[in-house]
């Protein structure tokens, strides 16, 4: 397994390199110039003095050729240094290391909790196929699926504040604070819909498996059949969705962290893009894809644990 992980990591490095090059080029050639932006944000009476801007760009080393800058950047990254923000001058490392845990904590908790709830709901729905309960759960999943998070977020806030007369659930004071529940829900509901559907489909499929019939033939009660024979096989395909869930959660965090004032990667992304702060953008891309890669790797590694057959899997080569 160690070799396998190493192998995966080795395969991952060129991908990251290409990704970085791509994004770097995109931002370098296309996106705005953060320095100019600083000046143009000021009212129009500020003389936008091209000479001065050039001087500032020189001072910041931004006038060097693309490749030189990129290689320089790579060198820094190799040393674990993402450079400094062009807008605030702060070290990107410290920004990321402050923001990442917030997003990870919320995201992982959301994924974890709602996956569990989702699986349970999905199983319940499947076992009651085409009955009222099934329809309710499936309907719920569909509606949650249909409403984008950035609509659901504000809706829930205003509902809580104006209707329930609660305080605005805003800011971050640790994962265990009550305020965080709302964004957690919003972040997780959408992926949960996915899990519900996946789990439901999975159970329906497993239900028609021969070994479930075997289990039934033993005359053990229904709940034992469900718990022992149905749940576990369903888990494998559901777990394989986690990579997708992670992506969805990261995407959603960009959309809603701002609304809930969560000092996470999503909010950082939003700000960085608005200000064309490319050292930050690049670092975030790198972090995001690391997180996704890591979760995919985790899923792959957990396969043999979930599915005993996987350990003896044969795959043709032709």
């Amino acid at each position, binding site marked *: *397994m160690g*070799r*396998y992980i190493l*192998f995966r990591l080795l395969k991952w490095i060129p991908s990251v390199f290409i990704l970085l090059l791509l994004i770097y080029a995109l931002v370098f050639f296309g996106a705005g110039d953060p320095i100019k932006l600083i000046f143009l944000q000021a009212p129009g009476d500020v003389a936008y003095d091209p000479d001065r801007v050039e001087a500032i760009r020189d001072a910041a080393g931004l006038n060097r050729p693309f490749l030189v800058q990129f290689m320089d950047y790579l060198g820094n990254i190799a040393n674990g240094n993402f450079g400094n923000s062009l807008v605030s001058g702060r070290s990107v490392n410290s920004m990321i290391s402050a923001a990442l845990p917030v997003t990870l904590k919320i995201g992982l908790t959301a994924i974890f909790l709602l996956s569990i709830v989702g699986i349970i709901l999905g199983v319940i729905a499947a076992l009651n196929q085409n009955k009222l309960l099934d329809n309710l759960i499936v309907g719920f999943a569909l509606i949650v699926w249909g409403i984008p998070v950035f609509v659901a977020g504000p809706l829930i806030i205003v509902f809580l504040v104006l209707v329930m007369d609660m305080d605005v659930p805003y800011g971050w004071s640790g994962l265990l604070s009550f305020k965080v529940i709302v964004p957690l829900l919003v972040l997780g509901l959408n992926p949960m819909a996915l899990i519900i559907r996946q789990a439901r489909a999975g159970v329906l499929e497993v239900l028609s498996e021969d070994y479930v019939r075997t289990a039934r033939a033993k005359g053990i009660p229904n709940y034992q059949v469900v718990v022992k024979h149905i749940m576990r096989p369903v888990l494998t395909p559901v777990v394989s969705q986690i990579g997708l869930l992670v992506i969805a959660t990261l995407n959603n965090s960009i959309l809603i962290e701002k609304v809930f004032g969560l000092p996470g990667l999503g909010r950082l992304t939003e700000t960085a893009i608005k200000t064309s702060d490319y050292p930050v953008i690049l670092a975030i891309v790198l972090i995001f894809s690391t997180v996704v890669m890591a979760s995919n790797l985790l899923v*792959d590694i957990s*396969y*043999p644990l979930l599915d005993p057959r*996987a*350990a*003896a*899997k*044969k*795959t*043709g*080569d*032709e």
Partner: protein
Amino acid sequence: MTRAAKQPLVKVKNLVKYFPIKIGAFGSEKAVVHAIDDVSFDIFRGETLGLVGESGCGKSTTGFTILQIYRSTSGSVEFEGVDLASLSKQELRAMRKRAQIVFQDPYSTLNPRMTIGEALAEPMKVHKICPDNEIQGRIAQLIRDVGLNPNVANRYPHEFSGGQRQRICIARALACNPEFIVCDEPISALDVSIQAQIINLLMDIQEKYNLTYLFIAHDLAVVRHISDRIAVMYLGKIMEIAEKKDLFKRPLHPYTKALLSAVPEADPDIERQRQRIILKGDVSNAIDPPSGCRFHPRCAYATDACAQSVPELEDYGDGHQVACLRLDEIAMEEKLETEDA
């Protein structure tokens, strides 16, 4: 005709087919399936060679490799003196019209998106068997040959039952006037009452078109009925080849004996008397086949020598070839037993 007068249409020499695969949870370990390993035999023009053996022993692979649908790992397949294994893809395509195959599962062998007519026209078009305007007529003829009504040509496969589909597959194999057909368990997916229909059909067209068959099956009763000669395969190796009558009368290889004794007969009297030879254990793994004689782990007569050296096929008269090191000793032992009794 004596065999000497017959000439082989297909000459399989030291044919080997390995499948490289990946195993393990992460697909990180490489392994090789020794699907067929050094197999040699001849198929004579106009005869039916039956190939029997247990599941996974490499029967289908043999059939596929003879036709070079799977390119062989080594060895040669001479078709009227041309070594198919050495042909390029292009050259091979031209040979394809002379050698055809009928697959086991008629449900998955027809493209569900093509009508029967299209499916039958395909080989004719590929090999330019006849002018375009004659294709329709020929299709009708073929469909009639396999006992269906020609008006089915513009229907889709799913509208047919398994037996009918198998007929259509046979028609498709016939479409380019082949001389040789590999029948890969053509009846084992069919209902009992339908199997006889297809066997009859296969025999009819063999007669009509003077075909040569390699008939693969695991049902010995059927093979016995249709074949002229029979080859018994075990884990990628041929264990015994003989004229049918010879084989049933005088099975020499311990495996053949066990196999024959395991075939049930639809007669309670026979069954009540029959002494089954029950083999111990299961077929070994083709990824990691046993050393020496592949059968030795299950063989009641195996000695250390069997685990050491690989037996070659040897002729025991009349073209009855057997691959066993201890054949003579076994014969002795048996004789003793019967005498004891």
